[in-house]
C-alpha cells in the first residue's frame, strides 16, 4: 500500500511554494517518514521555523506549527520545550536563517543540549530574498551579492554544531532521499539537541548563477561529492580530498536541559539536597 503522507499534512495548504527542483519537499517527505516511523503524536509535536523558503515547511504539516522571525526559531522552540517538556519539538530552517542571523540562538541551543531536533536545509544561498550569498556559500561562488565570486570563508554546519555542544549531528542530502527519513528519526529519538544538516539544492537562485545546467546535475553532485562516514573509514586521505562526509557524524550522551531543570525544581522544592 502506498505510504499515506497526507496523514501528516494539511492538504488544503498545498501546493507548496517551493520551486521545481528545490530539495525542501524531499526533506519534508523525510520528516513525515520519520514521524510515522516513530508514531509521533501530532497533538504533542511542535514544528518551529524562522524565515525563508525552508521556514514555510511547518505550514504544510498538521501539527502545532510556528513560523517565527528570521533566525529566532531555536529561541522560540526553547521556550516551548522548557515550558512543556512532554512536547516533541522539531526545528526546520535554512542555512542563512540558522547559522547567520540565528547563529547565536543555534549555538546556545546546542550548548544547552535541550531535547529538540534541528533540520537545516543547506542550499548555500538566501533563496527567498533572491539569491544573496549565505555563510555556507562556497568561497568563489556566485550569488546576487557576490557578482565577482564569494570572498567569504564558508561555515561547516556540522562542525559548528559539534563544537557548540550538540549531542547528535548527522548530515544527509536531498539526493539520498531514502536515507533522510532514517537520519531524521534517529535524530528525533536522540535525547538532547540533535542536528541534521541536509545538503540541498536551490536551482532557481544558486544553480542558475553557478553553471549547474540542470536540476539533475545539481542533485547528482551530492552523489559525487559525498561519502558515507563508514565508507570513509577505509579510504585514504587522498581519496577523501574534497569529499563531504554523510551519516551520523557525532553522537554522545550528556545531561539534557529540561531534565536538569526538573532537578533544579526538585532542589528548590526541597526534595533533593
Amino acid at each position, binding site marked *: 500500500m502506498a505510504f499515506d503522507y497526507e496523514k501528516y499534512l494539511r492538504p488544503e*495548504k498545498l501546493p507548496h511554494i517551493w520551486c521545481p527542483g528545490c530539495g525542501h519537499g524531499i526533506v519534508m517527505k523525510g520528516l513525515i517518514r520519520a514521524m510515522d516511523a516513530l508514531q509521533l503524536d*501530532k*497533538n*504533542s509535536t*511542535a514544528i*518551529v521555523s524562522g524565515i525563508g523558503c525552508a521556514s514555510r515547511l*511547518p*505550514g504544510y504539516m*498538521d*501539527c*502545532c*506549527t*510556528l*513560523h*517565527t*522571525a528570521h533566525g*529566532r526559531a*531555536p*529561541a*522560540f*522552540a*526553547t*521556550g*516551548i520545550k*522548557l*515550558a*512543556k517538556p*512532554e*512536547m516533541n519539538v522539531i526545528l526546520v530552517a535554512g542555512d542563512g536563517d540558522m547559522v547567520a542571523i540565528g547563529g*547565536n*540562538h543555534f*549555538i*546556545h541551543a546546542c550548548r544547552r543540549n535541550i531535547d529538540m531536533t534541528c533540520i537545516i536545509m543547506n542550499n548555500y544561498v538566501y533563496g527567498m530574498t533572491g539569491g544573496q550569498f549565505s555563510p555556507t556559500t562556497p568561497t568563489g561562488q556566485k550569488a546576487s551579492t557576490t557578482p565577482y565570486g564569494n570572498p567569504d570563508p564558508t561555515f561547516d554546519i556540522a562542525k559548528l554544531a559539534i563544537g557548540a555542544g550538540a549531542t547528535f549531528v548527522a548530515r544527509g542530502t536531498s539526493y539520498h532521499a531514502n536515507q533522510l527519513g532514517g537520519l531524521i528519526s534517529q535524530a528525533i529519538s536522540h535525547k538532547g539537541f540533535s542536528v541534521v544538516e541536509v545538503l540541498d539544492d536551490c536551482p532557481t537562485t544558486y544553480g542558475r548563477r553557478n553553471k549547474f545546467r540542470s536540476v539533475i546535475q545539481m542533485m547528482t553532485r551530492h552523489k559525487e561529492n559525498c561519502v558515507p562516514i563508514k565508507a570513509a573509514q577505509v579510504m585514504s586521505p587522498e581519496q577523501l580530498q574534497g569529499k563531504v562526509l554523510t551519516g551520523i557524524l557525532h553522537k554522545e550522551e550528556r545531561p539534557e536541559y529540561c531534565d536538569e*531543570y526538573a532537578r*533544579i*525544581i526538585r*532542589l*528548590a*522544592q526541597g526534595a533533593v539536597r
Partner: protein
Amino acid sequence: MAKRVAFLQGNEAAAFGALYAGCDFFAGYPITPATEVSEVLSVELPKVGGKFIQMEDEIGAMAACLGAALTGSKVLTATSGPGFSLKQELIGYGCIAEIPCVIIDVMRGGPSTGMPTGPSQSDIMAARWGTHGDHPAICLVPASVQELFEETVRAFNLAETYRTPVIVLPDEIIAHMRERIVIPDAGELEVIDRRLPSVPPEEYKPYDTSFGDVPPLASFGSGYRFHVTGLNKMQDGFPTTKPSLVQAEQERQMRKVNANVDDIVTYEEYLLEDAEIAVVAFGSTSRSVRYAINVAREQGIRAGMFRIRTIWPFPDRQIRELSTRVRAIITPEMNLGMCTQEVQRCVEGRVPVQGLFRVDGEPINPDQILESLKKVL
C-alpha cells in the same frame, strides 16, 4: 489575620507581583537596572514548579517567552533600554500573532548604552512605537514599589484579556528604591486567565472573529493543532496578502485595545478640583510633583497634579478635559519632551503646555517644579 508587610525594592516587588498573577515562565538576559527581577524569579519560580531561563541574548529571551506563552504559560521578561531596543522585533511578533506576554522595562538613560545606573523616563515612545508597523500598545507607569507590584499583576491581566504584549515601565528610581509594601492576600487582587476555545479542535481557528475582537487562544500540546505566523494572516492563522483581509485584521488588532480604553486607562487626580495650574506627571517624577504641590498650596498657588498611570493608551479624553478647566499645564519628565508632545496633542492649544525636562541622570526635584509653577503664574 495581619497583612503581610515587607520592605522591598521595586524590582523585587515586580517579581513577586508576577508570581501573584500566576507567572510560571521567565526568560531574560542580564541588564542593569532590571537584573533583580531575574534574580528573584530564578529563586522563586522553581519553588512553584515554574521555569526560569537565562537566554543567550535579549531577542532570545523575548522569543522564548513567546514560545512558552503558546503552550499556555503566563510569561514575563525584564529588561532596560538597550535590551528593550533588541526586543522590539519580537514585541512586534507578539502584537501581530497576538500572544500574551509581559515585559518589564526599567528605564535608564539613552539612547544606546546611555547611563546604565541613571534614571530616565525616555522609553515612552519606544514602548509605543519601537516595533515597526501599526499595532496597539498597553503600557503602565507605576510610581511606587506597591504600585509596581500591583501594576505587574494588572499587566498580566491585560495581556491575557487582550492577547497582546503589555509593558510595565518603571523608571530606575522606582525599580531600585526600597519601600514598605503590603502584600495582597491571594484572591484580593483579581487574576485573569486567558480565554480558551470552547469549540472542538477541528473547528478551532486562532483568529476567529466570531468570538469577538479578542479570539480565544488554545495552547500547543492541548489537543488543538494550529498555525502561528508573523505574517499577515487569515482567521485560521495562515498567511494571506489579500488586501481586504489584511486591512480588516490590522484594524481589529488596533480596535481590540482602542475600543476598550476606559477598561485600560488609569490615572490619579491630586488636588485638581480648584486647580489653576495642572502638572501632568508619571513615575518617580510624580512624587516630586506631589511634594511641590503641597508646598505651592501653602504659598497660595492653586496647583494640582494629573498623574498618568497608564501611558498607552494615552489618557487623551482626560487630558483634553483637563485643558478646559486650568490656565496652564506643566509637564515635567526625565526626557526631552516625549510625554509633553502627547499632552500638547490632546490640549490642542487651549492652554499653554510648559515642559520641564531633565536628562542628566538626576531626578527632577520639587524645587524645580515649584519654580516652574511660579513662572507660569
